[in-house]
């Protein structure tokens, strides 16, 4: 136990974050039914997906189509009715710190200071207080919150709370980062700032990201690939590559290629609506 830890802190000392080992996600004919016994409905219907290690994939779809259910299933919070999900060949059957989940509304512990919220995952692993606080402080610096260590979550703005949330998930060195409309409750300016911040972090740690959103601009700005889901029960409508150069900046959203893909997404989103 102590040896890998020592090695890890050595690598930390040279670079702010040692490379995580990104995970490969394989979803095979996944169906999920949700709701109470007497009123169960299918949220996902025989979905097949492959997400490569280190890929940034955005999931787009009409609201209520089952995007969040898909994330919950990959996280291990929602059980599959049929089919299976495997991460690096291992079937998902329960939540695990290697698959970090970030929601739209923060789930920080209100009774813990920011630094202890971030260090929580390491505390659960039995890492000593000094070591986990040191790592947490580094991650807080990475998300631009150095100096806010001893604040309580309630003393932070919505955008800052989401940064703490991201830092708390990252301290577990997740193979997969699952984000469920994490910036949905933020104002437009803060949201763009957070998107840029997320891309900067991702450029440093290269974990696999699955990012659910209903905002086409956000999906195209962030993702390598955009998966378009249909209305409930959700199935895959389109798998669109986003070949825009990185690092992406505000100007990326006005490039011809961006506008072209956005037009395609818009028409795809409109089509199923016309059919029903």
């Amino acid at each position: 136990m102590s040896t890998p830890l020592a090695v890890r802190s050595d690598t930390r000392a040279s670079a702010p974050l040692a490379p995580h080992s990104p995970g490969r996600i394989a979803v095979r004919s996944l169906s999920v039914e949700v709701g109470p016994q007497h009123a169960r409905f299918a949220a996902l219907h025989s979905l097949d997906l492959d997400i490569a290690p280190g890929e940034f994939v955005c999931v787009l779809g009409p609201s209520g189509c089952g995007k969040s259910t898909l994330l919950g299933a990959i996280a291990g919070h929602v059980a599959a009715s049929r089919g299976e999900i495997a991460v690096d060949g291992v079937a998902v059957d329960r939540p695990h710190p290697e698959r970090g989940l970030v929601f739209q509304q923060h789930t920080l512990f209100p009774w813990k200071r920011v630094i202890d919220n971030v260090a929580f995952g390491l505390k659960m692993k039995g890492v000593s207080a000094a070591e986990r606080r040191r790592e947490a402080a580094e991650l807080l610096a990475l998300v631009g919150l150095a100096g806010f260590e001893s604040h309580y979550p309630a003393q932070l703005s919505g955008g800052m709370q989401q940064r703490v949330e991201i830092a708390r998930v990252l301290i577990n060195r997740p193979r997969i980062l699952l984000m469920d409309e994490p910036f949905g409750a933020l104002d437009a300016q803060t949201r763009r700032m957070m998107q840029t911040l997320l891309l900067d972090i991702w450029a440093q740690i290269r974990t696999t990201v699955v990012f659910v959103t209903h905002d086409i601009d956000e999906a195209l700005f962030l993702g390598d690939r955009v998966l378009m889901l249909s209305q409930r029960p959700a199935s895959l409508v389109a798998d669109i590559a986003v070949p825009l150069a990185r690092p992406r900046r505000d100007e990326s959203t006005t490039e011809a290629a961006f506008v072209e893909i956005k037009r395609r997404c818009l028409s795809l989103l409109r089509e199923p609506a016309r059919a029903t």
Partner: protein
Amino acid sequence: MSATLDLTGRKHTATREAAPTNALACRSPLRRRAWRAGSIALFVAAWQAAVHCHLSLGIVTFANVPSPADAIPALWALLHSPRLPMHLAASVTRVLAGFCAAAIVGVALGLAIGRYRALEDMLMPPLEILRPIPAVAWIPLAILMFPSTELSMMFITFIGALFPILLNTIHGVDAVDPRLVATARGLGTGTLSLYTEVVLPGAAPSIFTGLSIGMGTAWFCLVTAEMIAGQYGIGYFTWESYTLQNYADIVVGMALIGVLGMGSSLLVKRIGAALTPWYRLRGARQ
């Protein structure tokens, strides 16, 4: 930096929102304290006036009530009596013992019942039947069940304090955000750590409310408990004064119990506030 701007912006809105409700408190805490002391003085003055004028309101009459002018010399006498420290020590010990036992049992049971439906179904029906039974009805059984009168008296104060603590703990555990529990699990939290890291701190504000009420009800049961007593205790002093028809001393005993109960309740509340500093912060966001 925009993050800093963010925070200051938030602070401004928070103070603006809080301003109307806290206007009185913010103006001058000293003046507010003076008002509160004045209110007690006014209450005593009204009492004195009611007795002095033989105020009679048809169904209630103050004609035979001891006045503050009678009670204050009695209080003075008691304060100089060598028996007071023994009365106080006996009562405080009984209340503290009953309260501490109730705190341990109430919080432990509450944490378990609040988390597990099966335990709730198994334990709550008998507890709900025991709850409305007044402390005075427990006296005969308390005497039969315990080897010493001292333990019987502690049991009565325990009964008084138990239910507010138990019910507030259950309520607090029920109210813990299930999203926080799911998040903790996702971050690798085991069953035991879930209690210490999430359930207990999440329920803490409600538990301290229960402890503060429980401290009050423990004192509330003191006279009942010390009806069993032989020699010492503020409750015993009050009860004895009644049997000796020493009316001024009854009032002194009542006032002492009131002041001690209020003081210890306030102390528990203060300790709770000190241990849950985040709780004051919840406001606009949460």
